[in-house]
C-alpha cells in the first residue's frame, strides 16, 4: 500500500475524497482481512477528522491592499458591524 499522509495533517477535501474512495474499496471487499481492518480504521479517523474540521471551521476574511511597490499584499478584513 502506498504511504499515506497522517490524517490530522490533511485538508478537508483530501480527507473527504480519500474517505469516499476508501468506502468504495472496502465495499468491493477484495482485500485481505488485515487490509480491510486497516482501511476501516483509517476511514474512521478520516471521517472524524472531516467532522471536526467542518464543525470548527470559521471563514477567514482577507483583503488585497495596494502596497508601496505597485503590487498588492494581503491583510485581514474586518467587516463593520451592521
Amino acid at each position, binding site marked *: 500500500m502506498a504511504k499515506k499522509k497522517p490524517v490530522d495533517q490533511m485538508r478537508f477535501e483530501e480527507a473527504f475524497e480519500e474517505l469516499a474512495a476508501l468506502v468504495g474499496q472496502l465495499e468491493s471487499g477484495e482485500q485481505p482481512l488485515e487490509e480491510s481492518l486497516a482501511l476501516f480504521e483509517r*476511514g474512521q479517523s478520516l471521517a472524524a477528522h472531516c467532522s471536526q474540521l467542518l464543525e470548527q471551521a470559521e471563514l477567514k476574511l482577507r483583503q488585497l491592499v495596494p502596497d508601496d511597490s505597485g503590487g498588492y499584499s494581503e491583510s485581514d478584513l474586518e467587516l463593520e458591524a451592521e
Partner: protein
Amino acid sequence: MLRAMGVLSLFGLPTTVWSPSQLNRHVRQVLESDYRLSDLWLAGEVANLSHPASGHLYFSVRDSEAAVRCVMWRPEVARLPRLPRDGEAVEAHGHLSVYEAGGQYQLYADQIAFAGEGALYQEFLRLKAVLEAEGLFDPDRKRDLPKWPRRIGVVSSPTGAALRDVVNVLGRRYPLAELILSPTPVQGEAAPAAIVEALRAVNQYGNPDVILLVRGGGSMEDLWAFNTEEVVRAVVNSTAPVVTGIGHETDVHLADFAADRQAPTPSAAAEIATPDRAELAGELREHRQRLARAWRRQRDERHSQVAKQRAALALASPQARIANARQRSDDLARRVVAAVRHELALRQAGLRGLVQTLTAVGPETVLARGYAVVRRLADGQVVRSMAQVKAGDPLGVRVSDGSFGARVEI
C-alpha cells in the same frame, strides 16, 4: 354544465367536450398556476400601442419573430412617468393570464421600464451583438468551477450589501474556505476601470480558485459598469473562473453572459461556488455508516469462511492418518515381539529335546542300563576287543555309580 352525452373518442373512451368558457377558464387556471409566469419581465419592442378613453393601455411587446399581447390597467398607467411609444425598447413586468372573453393570453403589466430612454439599452444591445459575434459568450468558453474552492476571490465594494451577503452565505455553507476581497467601487464613472483592476489584482496576487463578481441591486445606470466592454473582457480573461451575481433576479448584464457561471444575486453566486456544509455533514454520516457496514459484512464473511475452512481442514488433516499409522506401528511392534518370543520359545524347546537326546545317547544312561566301560590301567585305553588284553592285565571298570579295579583272566 354543457356536456354532450355519449360522445366517444377514437379509442372508445368517453371524452370531455368543452365549452369555450370552460376551456378558457381552464387554460387561465393552468397559466396562473405556473409561478414563473406570475412574476416576470418581458423585454422587447413596443408595438400596436393603444390608449383608449378608459385609461387602460393595450400594446404588444415583440422581437423579430414573435409578439406577446399586454394590457396595463389605468391605476398602473397613472404611475408611469410617461407613456411608451411604438417601436420603443422596454421591459414590462407583470403576470400572465387569459382574457377569457377573447380566448387570448396576455401579460397583465404593472410596471414598464424604459430601457434607459432607449440609448443605454440600445448600447447594451449593440455591444452584446458585437461581443457575442466575437464568441466571448460561447458556452464552450465556460470553465467548470472547482469542487473544493480553498480561496474565494470577491470583487465587490468593501461597504456594500453584496459583500455582507457573500460573507454570510460562505460562513454558513463553506467556512473551510478563505475569502479574499479585492475591493473596488462598483458604481460611477471610475467603476469599470476599477473593476478591471480588481479582477487583475485578485488573479495575480490573490491566488483564487474562483472569483465572485458581485453587486447588489440598482437601476440600469447604477449597474452600467457590468455592461461595459472592458469589464466583459476582464471577466473573459480572468485566470480563475468567474461567477457573477449582479443586481436582482431579473437583471441581466453583459458580464453575466461572459462569466463562467451566472447567478441572479450575490448570495446565489456564493452558493453556486461552494459545497454546503450541511450536505457534507450528511454525506460524511453516510460514508461512516457504509464504512462500518462494509467492514462488518467483510469480517463476518471471513469468520464464516474461517469456520468452514477449519472444518474442511479437520477432514483433510494428516492427524487422522498419523493416529492410524501410530496404531498400526504399535500393532506391528507387538507382532514383532510376539514373533520373536515364539521363535525363542521354539528354539528353547528344540534345545531341551537335543539335551534329552544327548543325555539319552550319552555313556551315563548306557552305564545305568548295566553296561560298563573297561579301560587298560596301563594306558587308559577303552577295551573294545580281545586283542587288546592278555591274562593278568590290570583293568579299570567304570559302572554307573563308580569305578573298581579288575584282572584279566583268560
